[in-house]
């Protein structure tokens, strides 16, 4: 019965998609918002990477919410998984080569992650991609040494202040009589490292937030005891 209704549902979805395919006109419409942004972004925001301009300036509100979703998922994950019991079974130790490799990788990943975050307004990449690399920098040592655990207090401190920093930058603009999340600071020269006003600051907040949330999530998951 369930199978039948599922199959019917899928059939309906398939028909819907087929109908869309039939009537859809590919690429017939000019992207109104996108074209406007491409014309004015260099002047208005001052970021050479227009995707960054959209992510942090034009649609910065979305990004704030996205960070909140990660934060919420980490908080809810903490609620669900809880604290690991003492003396829970652990993964077998991973051997010398992996541990040495993890130690070697740690500074490398840290530098690469920070580089990607700081150049987010100039080249592809930014807070999200850099944040993932930061998270892996802190997580790989845990994988290599299954006994150790992450300092959750410090992680929650970083995630709290990074998220609050993003909102504070937005609220500062309101104090100055502008709208929430308006770009601040001098735009500088297009393409320079110190340019695009407050965007690099926002991306640092994003990077730290993403990094700490993801590292926390990964650590939570790996600290949970195995069921078998």
């Amino acid at each position, binding site marked *: 019965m369930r199978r039948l209704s599922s199959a019917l*549902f899928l059939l309906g979805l398939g028909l*819907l998609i087929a*109908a*869309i395919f*039939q*009537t*859809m006109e590919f690429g017939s*419409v*000019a*992207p*109104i*918002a*996108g*074209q*406007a*942004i491409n014309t*004015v972004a260099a002047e*208005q925001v001052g970021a050479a990477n227009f995707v960054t301009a959209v992510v942090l*300036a*034009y*649609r*910065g*509100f*979305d990004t*704030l*919410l*996205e960070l*909140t*979703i990660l*934060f*919420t*998922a980490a*908080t*809810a994950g*903490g*609620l*669900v998984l*809880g604290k690991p019991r003492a003396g829970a079974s652990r993964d077998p130790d991973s051997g010398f080569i992996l541990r040495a490799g993890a130690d070697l990788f740690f500074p490398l990943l840290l530098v690469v992650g920070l580089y990607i975050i700081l150049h987010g307004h100039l080249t592809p990449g930014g807070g999200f991609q850099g944040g993932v690399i930061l998270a892996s920098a802190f997580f790989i040592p845990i994988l290599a040494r299954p006994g150790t655990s992450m300092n959750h*207090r410090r992680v*929650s*401190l970083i*995630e*709290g*202040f990074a*998220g*609050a920093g993003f*909102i*504070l930058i*937005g*609220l500062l*603009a*309101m104090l100055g009589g*502008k*709208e*929430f*999340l*308006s*770009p601040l600071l001098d735009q500088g020269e297009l393409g320079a490292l110190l340019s695009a006003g407050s965007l690099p600051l926002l991306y640092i907040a994003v990077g730290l937030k993403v990094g700490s949330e993801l590292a926390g999530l990964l650590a939570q998951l790996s600290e949970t005891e195995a069921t078998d």
Partner: protein
Amino acid sequence: MNKLVLLVALPLITAFLLPVINRVSAFAGRWSGPLILLLTSALGISLWSQLGDSAVAIELGGFRPPLGITLYADQMAILFAVAASLGTLLLWPNGGEDSVRQSTLALILAASGSGLALSGDLFNIYVFYELVAVVSYGLIAAKATSGSYAATLRYLVVSSFGAAMALTGIALVYQATGTLNLAQLAQLAPTQLNNMQGLAAFVLMLIGFGVKAELFPVNTWVPEVYATAPARISGLLAGVVSKLALLIIVRLLVLVFHQPEALTVMLVLGIIGVVSGELAAWRARDFKRMIAFSSIGQLGIMFIAFAIPGKAGIFAGLAIALHHLVVKPALFLLAERWSGSLSGLAGAAKASPLAAALFILLALSLIGVPPLPGFWAKLLVLVELSQQSQPLYYLGAVVILAGAALEANYLFRVASRFYHAENAQTAPASHRLPELATASLLCAALAGSVFVLTPLAEQIEGIATQAADTAHYIQTVNPEALP
């Protein structure tokens, strides 16, 4: 007026910092959440009174639409934004092991609920909707029973499927128009979206946003979640969050999707919702699932009402939605101590006479007995339905009447059991004070509204008139001229 953003920003920043605040002082950690919500609710109400019957658009980041994200605040938006704040405050999660995490999640729920009501950008709505979803997973799972974990996971699967469908719909809309701003979409819709692709996009978004609005094919999570979640969270989900999802669908219908087929789809799904919900509630053997199924039925009535074209539909739908917004949380609060089977409720009136009396008041209003507000709301829907020409609307009216008869049957079966003291083995425990106080407050609001029915109806009609006015919306947001 740009202070409206604080309705979202203040709870969010408090939520981010709550773990830190709690470490400094547990007292501050416990009270800062409710305090902030009190503040935002007051702010929202004061802005509502300032606004009058005008509307305002906030260009976030100072970018003109369609470049940036726009928030749109008319009376309906602020009403529901305040409802999200105030509702979370009234139903603030209490107890449980991890109260800091729960408070954090509740704050985010208030922020995202308010934002969902105010947002004027299609993708921004999607992000807010996902945020509401993730927060509710956390709050349901906070019960920390095996049942709540399983129910949350099943809910997550349905909800993620819906969200992906909504995202697909958004992609189709963007493909056809090249913009996400609702005002600009309203300008472009008659030429670009009045076709098969537009209808498909609407159906996909209806499935997506319908998950939280307990729409028929995607409401399988409702009985499981409401039976396993903490009662306050069930009340929030059924009372407030479902209305927010409904609000989005109504906005989309008014502004973007003008096809008559779109209304027909909603009408049919609403009718199925009423029939299946009320029948299942009638068959239910335990109190929580009975009111869970009855909420599917009630939301079905709202879908039927909003399927009436034009202002009349919004007026009728809004009236019944606001009624449900007050009644359902109160019912779930009462359900906290009556979670056992219905037969175990015998003699409950002796243990807690006030709770039993409140239940009867709520039940009478839910069924639609004059002079309670529920009667006028249902009457309004029936009158508007009878003025339509399509026969399907008459079917809707018949189904609503039959549903009311079923409701009367199962609600009175429960009420009469309350006063059967002779075969009571063990009367259920009496209610805790916070639950009873909040439920009494909601009931008092319900009963009090009987005396101000005429001004209230005029107010709601004003809200509906404003919400149905597409030109007013476009004029307020005033996007850049189309190229």
